[in-house]
């Protein structure tokens, strides 16, 4: 068993055919439903098609060309603010050999686009990017072949330019006139005539994002901006704690309030619909005051989360078991790291619009997965799936499974209560803070041994965590569905298997270590609502591993960067580490003379198979207040073939700042019954006063190499780089997040 684990992992790292197969299975598990896998093709065995072509092999699922030459590209992925729309358009335009502006991109819509599961896990480029790249190349090939047939000229002599195929004699066949009904309705083949990266005109260019201008000039860009005719406004009255039952609500007065159209109650699901938004808000306040709840929630002691986690019943999963007869290390080291629950905290609370008309329900939602959300909503309402359409509309920043799926379910229920009218549900700030699923609290125990030469010879990693995914799923994954009079049961949590992983994501050290063992103590008991938050377990595992690497380096008397290089073979990893260190001036720039300064370094490859990211940073710790601030950061990232380096840099900058905020400031707070961090004053995050002075991101391009997801690659390294820098500045090692001012001040004493 352990040998087999090692082989498939090595195959994954080497990117062989096994890689694609495991992606395929991971894709199904992402869907987290019990339905049989989608039929892939009519061939007897699944062909090794790139990316999401496995799930949707027909070319016209991805690329459609009208008779007038208009080109639509479909993706099952969603724009979350990460710039994916632009990147995918660049890919399609490049391989179709057309101008960027010719491409119209349609994103996740259960009526129009392929099912690509969730826009998550930094998979969009690897899944959708690869599918579109290959599909577009194959479409171009088909267009050329068709034109060649009409021109009576060998295909090899045809060229493409400006959305037309050109014959040697100059005859032009526009793409529009070449397509017939069936031309593109063919299954993709495993190989494609891809362009040579050295010929790229659109890919590997910092093309301005297509979605930004509207967002900065008042254009309609978000689900919150939708205003279909006849739209009415709804607000939900959520309970004061998990699982609370609505005992009674005297809504007589609320029904009479101005503009109120309906008060909807189904079991403990309580909502009010009004003509105008502020009327809905005032009615919600009155309705909440009139509601009486029976509360039963029992939350753990927030001050003793570590002991709580390790005391829970666990399913132990051996993630890695690579034993070597212990020759006995010269030095052994042990450390335990922890983090509390962390919130997404998107600036725009969740929102959805839904309309039930002629038996068909349409939901506009910013869910990360329109298909799974659609399936769950259909099950909740007892409707056939084909009668429910979920259309992705952008929300504010999406960093995982937030309240979007639930807001969609809320809107669906209310649309059913008021058929024929679009109903807009807007969660309040307090509801978003209290009801979104959090990144789970985690505890990690690390043990390692060094030999006389300062090499790590043995490594033990144990991680305790809840699941990192409770996404829809069955109807019971939806908050509303669990609170109905006939409630749907919450589905049991399941671990996401490696190589993706959940709580064990990135738990396998990428370093060269002869003997290593990784155990994931999967904890099914979830008193606090949890699910996927950007990088999943990758944040905490990398924070722990990279902090521990620094502790080991210190024990070995080695420089942190040199120590890492000593244990890294992968040349791409080494280059990323060396680049970040060199651009930061790790060995060349003299240390700042200002008081309280420290430097830190960290590196990881997201999931050990996506993008590589190394970060060096300098922090400043104020002795009197204990406050730590990042002053400067330099990052290097390798994302494979670069499509839009500005997009990558934007994501890494954002990851560094967001991760810094998680690391230094954040923890969800609760008492024995209720979540108490319900707004920005009780859950403070980074503000402008703490933003670094300088930040540089160096993107290393790898022409022709597979795309590597980069949206989450910065979270873990940033956290560890900050912790290592604080340790350097203060002489104290902080292993429990957040590394707050109070903790630093307490450690530094008077």
């Amino acid at each position, binding site marked *: 068993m352990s040998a087999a684990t090692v082989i498939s992992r090595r195959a994954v790292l080497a990117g062989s055919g096994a890689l694609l197969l495991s992606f395929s299975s991971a894709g199904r598990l992402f869907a987290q439903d019990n339905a049989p896998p989608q039929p892939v093709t009519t061939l007897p065995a699944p062909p090794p098609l790139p990316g999401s072509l496995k799930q949707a092999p027909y070319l016209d699922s991805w690329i459609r060309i009208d008779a007038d030459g208009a080109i639509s590209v479909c993706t099952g992925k969603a724009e979350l603010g990460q710039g994916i729309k632009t990147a995918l358009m660049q890919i399609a335009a490049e391989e179709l050999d057309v101008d960027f502006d010719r491409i119209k991109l349609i994103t996740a819509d259960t009526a129009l686009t392929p099912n690509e599961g969730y826009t998550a896990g930094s998979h969009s480029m690897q899944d959708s990017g690869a599918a579109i790249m290959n599909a577009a190349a194959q479409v171009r090939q088909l267009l050329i072949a068709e034109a060649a047939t009409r021109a009576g000229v060998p295909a090899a002599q045809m060229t493409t330019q400006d959305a037309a195929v050109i014959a040697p004699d100059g005859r032009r066949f526009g793409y529009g006139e070449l397509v017939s009904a069936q031309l593109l309705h063919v299954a993709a083949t495993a190989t494609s005539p891809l362009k040579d990266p050295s010929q790229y005109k659109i890919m590997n260019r910092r093309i301005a994002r297509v979605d930004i201008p509207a967002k900065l000039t008042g254009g309609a860009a978000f689900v919150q901006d939708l205003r279909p005719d006849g739209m009415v406004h709804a607000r939900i*009255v*959520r309970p*004061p*704690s998990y699982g609370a039952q609505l005992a009674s609500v005297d809504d007589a007065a609320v029904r009479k309030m101005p503009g109120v159209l309906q008060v909807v109650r189904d079991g403990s699901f309580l909502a009010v619909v009004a003509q105008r938004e502020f009327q809905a808000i005032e009615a*919600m*306040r009155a309705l*909440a005051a009139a509601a009486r709840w029976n509360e039963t929630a029992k939350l753990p002691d*927030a001050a003793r989360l570590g002991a709580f986690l390790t005391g829970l019943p666990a399913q132990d999963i051996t993630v890695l078991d690579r034993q070597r007869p212990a020759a006995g290390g010269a030095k052994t080291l042990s450390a335990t790291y922890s983090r509390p629950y962390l919130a997404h905290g998107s600036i725009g609370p969740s929102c959805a619009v839904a309309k039930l008309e002629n038996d068909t329900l349409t939901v506009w939602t910013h869910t990360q997965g329109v298909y799974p959300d659609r399936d769950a909503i259909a099950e909740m309402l007892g409707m056939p799936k084909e009668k429910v359409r979920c259309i992705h509309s952008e929300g504010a920043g999406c960093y995982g499974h937030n309240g979007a799926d639930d807001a969609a379910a809320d809107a669906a229920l209310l649309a059913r209560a008021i058929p024929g009218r679009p109903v807009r549900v807007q969660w*309040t700030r*307090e*509801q978003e*803070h*209290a*009801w979104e699923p959090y990144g789970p609290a985690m505890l990690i125990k690390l043990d390692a041994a060094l030999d006389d030469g300062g090499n790590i010879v043995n490594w033990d990693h144990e991680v305790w965590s809840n699941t990192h995914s409770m996404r829809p799923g069955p109807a019971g994954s939806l908050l509303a569905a669990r609170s109905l009079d006939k409630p749907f049961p919450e589905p049991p949590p399941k671990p996401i298997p490696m190589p993706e992983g959940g709580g064990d994501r990135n738990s396998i050290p990428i370093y060269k270590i002869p003997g290593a063992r990784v155990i994931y103590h999967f904890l099914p008991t979830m008193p606090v609502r949890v699910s996927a938050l950007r990088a999943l377990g990758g944040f905490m595992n990398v924070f722990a591993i990279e902090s521990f690497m620094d502790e080991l380096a210190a024990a070995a008397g080695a420089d942190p960067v040199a120590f890492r290089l000593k244990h890294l073979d992968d040349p791409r990893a080494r280059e990323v580490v060396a680049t970040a260190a060199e651009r930061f001036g790790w060995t060349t720039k003299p240390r700042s003379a200002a*008081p309280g300064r420290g430097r830190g370094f960290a590196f990881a490859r997201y999931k050990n198979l996506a993008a590589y990211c190394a970060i060096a940073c300098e922090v400043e710790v104020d*002795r*009197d*207040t204990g*406050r730590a601030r990042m002053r400067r950061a330099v990052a290097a990232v390798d994302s494979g073939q670069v499509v839009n380096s500005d997009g990558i840099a934007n994501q890494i900058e954002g990851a560094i700042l967001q991760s810094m905020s998680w690391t*230094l*400031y954040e923890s969800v*707070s609760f*008492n*024995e*019954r*209720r*979540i*108490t961090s*319900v*707004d*920005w*004053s*009780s859950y*403070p995050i*980074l*503000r402008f*006063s*703490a933003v670094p002075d300088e930040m540089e991101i160096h993107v290393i391009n790898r022409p022709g190499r597979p795309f590597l997801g980069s949206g989450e690659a910065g979270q873990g390294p940033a956290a560890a780089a900050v912790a290592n820098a604080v340790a350097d500045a203060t002489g104290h090692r902080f292993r429990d997040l957040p590394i*707050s*001012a*109070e903790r630093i001040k307490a450690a530094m*004493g*008077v």
Partner: protein
Amino acid sequence: MRLLRFALAFCVLLALTAGVFTIVAWRPAIGPIAPPAVNSFDPALVKRGAELAAIGDCDVCHTVPGGRALAGGRAVPTPFGSIYSTNITPDPETGIGQWSQAAFQRALRLGVRRDGAYLYPAFPFDHFTLVSDDDDNALYAYLMTRAPAYAPPTPDKLPLPLNIRFVMFAWDFLFLHPGPYRADATHDGAWNRGAYLVDGLGHCGACHTPRNLFGAERADLKFSGSEVEGWTAYALNDLSPAPVPWNAAALRHYLRYGYEDSHGVARGPMTEVAGDLHAIPADDMRAIATYVAAQMNHAAPEQDVVVQGAEMQRDRGTTDTAASADSQSNALRAIDTKNDEGAVIYAGACAGCHEGPRALPYGGIDLMLTSAIGGPSANNLVNIVLYGLPAAEAAHAPIMPGFAGAMNDAQIVALARYLRARFSDKGPWTDIAKSIHDTRNRGRPLTIGHPAVIEPAPSGRSTAGAQ
């Protein structure tokens, strides 16, 4: 000739007086010393010094916001001009690095600098004179083990003759009662400990006691309240305007956490005080709270203030039509809330937070409970309405938006009138418009204050969860 003789006699008399005056008033310099080594101090003494420095809020006056800690340079506004705090880091050239223990003690006890010059009582040595020798030594140990910062002093902006420090001799003669503290036998140990801390290092009276023409605290009006840096420091004696009376437990919570459920949130200069008091030992806090509570003789020690606050809200009611108490003023009865501009503003701008379910310190306080509305002057309310409570970097602290941009003076007047009438049983304010004008036109920014740390009190008090 007689005139000349008179003139001569007069001059001789003047010279003699001046001579006597100089001889009596002159203070010698105390010789400089080499800065003592940091490890020459007992760590326990340094720790005690840190606690005492927190009680004395040394860092608040002696640090420019965002500047080096204790390096001075902060303007302390007085009616006479601006005085700038000094560098009390152990920097030998620009700080107190060359001060001996004796020099340090003399400064606190008698208000005299190492070089013999008089200190201005903006440095409240009229309070610090009460500090005991042992505590002076602890403070000395603490300050001498801080990081030295090179920061030359900022010249004070005082008119003649006040810019001649020598004249402070007269002030000291009249108003300084040199310490150290002597116990009052008619009170118990806890009270005395409290008096020692509050009247000594805590120097609460420096803000909470009105001053006379010479800028000295009026002993006959001790703790009767005063105006400081644009804020009203409320009375801490029988004149306390708090709608729910304070008791020791409430004070302990307020001073430690910067808020209390039945009184509100510390604002203005008090945020810095609460921030400093956050970590002081429980015994010291207990003593301080006991003493202050004792000044407010009408405090209700038996009844829990939370219960009292809740009862008050129930009695008054929170609906527009509540006007049950007989003592309601005519102003309240006359309010037509449908057409009252202040009521409309309150409903749209304030009620969402101030009648919402989020508990203190984060959610807005029920306005019936706050001295800002029950107090004698509109000053603090106006400050808050104009500038709010800005977000503090990374701190768990209440955030309130300011309305200086959205509301004009007339609108704030209407709002303040409404709030006063609806949420208090006192007569209308007369100073609203002037308060607004003065605050908007202050020469220097209002001290809003960011608490160093306000942590939520241990669970039990916060009961409201999400809506």
